[in-house]
């Protein structure tokens, strides 16, 4: 195509997209009470983890092991763009699906028809891609009142009008050119929009920020690496390493309304040359318990002190009331990148137990059974200029990673994807690593390794009985989140592009559908006009695309048994009048 014609065509497509962005509001306001009671609202999916506990458990039960084989696609939608990978959890409220695609492009889609109500397309300055360690992926949006909150990749928090997608307010989270970027779904607690940041590989000093939901005003900021003199600063050397100490907060946290406590995971320290910052390096690789009104830390638990291996502990804590050793116990459960699954007392942060999720873990010789503190295997810590250390197990992608688990209270099972792989790390020669804002600040070269024919494992963990209930192996790594339903079904996806349904109790595969591209996003379910639907984003990108060559994609798929789609007036395609005007003789 001639370049001029191509440019004209692109411009015209842009105009057409803008025309599609119109349309009436379908969504009413989401109140604080709605969010607090999200677990009881079976019809909707109002926040990242469905409710503040992050269970991703739906009380819907129309779909069951007996009928799921009849489930078929109802409608689908391409998210277009550059196919940078889809990792979001869609939200569903008042008949509208809200979700983000790569580059934090936000869609509001009429769930009855698949029609795009509006589409928000951020614009970015040149060079941003160089600051995205793991691709232009995005993990979701948040709802409150009449606003949709999205953290753009360039560390700007936008509040969009839920009716038309127009920006109501914008708040600068940080300067992306210094390596701080954002791609997670904010967590809204009361009138606080709480957001974490990425940048652990760029020498940032991590933090959480809270913005006022109505105005966008900054309310508080809590750093995850203490400054000299602050509690925990004695776990860092007496130099400036804390300024580049990492500890990003790049996933969404959990909230316990009973105690008004926020739980949030913290990533790895910077640099990866841990011998350059000896000490435990608090509060990296920890879960923090905080007051959401002030950001003040209540307590913490650290999983991997002085981390050399990129074992972020950013995973979302799942808040569960269960029975441990015969006693009713309020816990948080989390599967860590360091290869262990942890259960901790969420009233005080004390260790209860851990299970080894990955075979051959060798960065530690084991965890203290009372405290969970690891005994570090120093032979597996790379040293400057000392050559490659390998294989280290698990590899930097972790025993598990950011993909959200689910918890079924009826079965007492916690469902999570676990990956079995290794890595080699070579620490740079002494003096080679110099901090420069916006440059990668790792200080190691790395190589991931397959350690066998099977990498992925879909696991069900019996929380109360401290054991793996079942395991389903997959040749490729698993990077999709989980959804479990009262109907007894577990939904997830795989790198082959298959969207899968299992019997939650046994792990028996019951249904599958090929979506055409790898699935690294998280499924949801909702009820519309009395019918249960299941939705998932499909599109290879992000970290999995480092390791597997496969078709990229970008689709939202919606499934049901005998689902309905209202095609009356449905069209996401419109004639571009300038390109195809009506002939007038």
């Amino acid at each position: 195509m001639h370049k001029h014609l191509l440019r004209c065509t692109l411009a015209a497509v842009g105009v057409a997209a803008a025309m599609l962005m119109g349309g009436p509001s379908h969504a009413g306001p989401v109140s604080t009470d709605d969010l607090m009671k999200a677990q009881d609202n079976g019809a909707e999916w109002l926040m990242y983890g469905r409710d503040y506990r992050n269970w991703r458990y739906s009380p819907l039960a129309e779909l069951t092991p007996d009928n799921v084989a009849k489930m078929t696609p109802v409608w689908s939608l391409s998210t277009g763009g550059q196919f940078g990978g889809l990792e979001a959890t869609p939200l569903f409220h008042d008949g509208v699906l809200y979700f983000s695609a790569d580059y934090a492009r936000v869609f509001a889609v009429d769930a009855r028809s698949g029609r795009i109500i509006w589409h928000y397309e951020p614009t970015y300055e040149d060079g941003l891609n160089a600051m995205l360690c793991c691709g232009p992926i995005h993990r979701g949006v948040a709802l409150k009142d009449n606003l949709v909150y999205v953290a753009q990749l360039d560390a700007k928090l936008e509040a969009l009008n839920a009716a038309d997608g127009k920006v109501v307010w914008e708040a600068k989270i940080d300067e992306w050119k210094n390596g701080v970027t954002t791609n997670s779904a904010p967590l809204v607690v009361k009138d606080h929009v709480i957001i974490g940041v990425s940048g652990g590989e760029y020498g940032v000093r991590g933090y959480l920020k809270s913005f006022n939901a109505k105005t966008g005003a900054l309310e508080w900021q809590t750093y995850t690496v203490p400054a000299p003199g602050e509690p925990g600063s004695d776990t860092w050397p007496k130099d400036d390493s804390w300024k580049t100490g990492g500890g990003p907060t790049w996933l969404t946290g959990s909230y316990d309304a009973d105690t008004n406590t926020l739980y949030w995971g913290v990533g790895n320290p910077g640099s990866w040359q841990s011998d350059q910052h000896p000490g435990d390096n608090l509060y990296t690789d920890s879960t923090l318990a905080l007051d959401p009104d002030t950001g003040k830390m209540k307590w913490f638990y650290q999983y991997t002190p002085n981390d050399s291996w990129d074992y972020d502990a950013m995973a979302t804590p799942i808040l569960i009331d269960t029975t441990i050793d015969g006693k009713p116990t309020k816990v948080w459960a989390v599967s860590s990148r360091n290869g262990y699954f942890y259960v901790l007392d969420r009233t005080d942060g004390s260790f209860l137990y851990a299970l080894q999720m990955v075979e051959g873990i060798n960065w530690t010789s084991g965890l203290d059974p009372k405290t969970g503190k690891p005994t570090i295997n120093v032979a597996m810590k790379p040293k400057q200029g000392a050559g490659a250390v390998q294989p280290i197990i698990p590899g930097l992608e972790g025993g598990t990673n950011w993909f959200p688990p689910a918890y079924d209270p009826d079965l007492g099972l916690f469902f999570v994807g676990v990956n079995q792989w290794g890595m080699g790390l070579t620490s740079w020669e002494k003096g080679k690593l110099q901090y420069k804002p916006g440059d990668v600040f790792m200080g190691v070269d790395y190589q991931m390794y397959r350690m066998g024919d099977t990498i992925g494992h879909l696991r069900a963990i019996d929380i109360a009985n401290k054991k793996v209930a079942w395991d389903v192996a997959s040749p490729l790594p698993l990077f999709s989140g989980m959804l479990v339903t009262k109907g007894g079904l577990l939904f997830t996806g795989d790198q082959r592009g298959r969207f899968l349904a299992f019997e939650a109790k046994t792990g028996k595969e019951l249904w599958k559908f090929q979506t055409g591209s790898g699935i690294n996003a998280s499924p949801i379910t909702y009820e519309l006009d009395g019918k249960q639907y299941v939705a998932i984003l499909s599109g290879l990108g992000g970290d999995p695309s480092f390791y597997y060559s496969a078709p990229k994609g970008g689709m939202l798929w919606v499934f049901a048994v005998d689902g309905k789609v209202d095609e009356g007036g449905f069209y996401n395609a419109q004639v571009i009048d300038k390109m195809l005007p009506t002939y007038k003789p």
Partner: protein
Amino acid sequence: MRSLERRVRAAALILCAALPLWSMSIRSGSADDALTDPFLGQADAISAGRDTYRAKCYICHFSNGGRGPNLFATKLTDEQFLETVINGRKGTQMPAFGLRLSPDEVWQVHAFIKSTDHY
């Protein structure tokens, strides 16, 4: 004279990084007047290129390709390599480094990936 021409053309590439649409009208010259890497085989430049590669390229391109292609097997000409790094590649995740790296730094990276000292 060749050196002056090289600097002028490299400066043009930098300008195009700031004004990306202009790059659409840039055409490579014939093989005879194509820009070539002045640092090939020079140990100091290769070492400097390695450091820059680690700080800016490795996270995507790794030691043998990853999210981006394997640069150690690139078939781009010297000039195409310079232009791609400075202007980025539209429609992909390759950003424009023209405002963050000088042409000499890009040449050093190129010297590194073409050396026997690479990964």
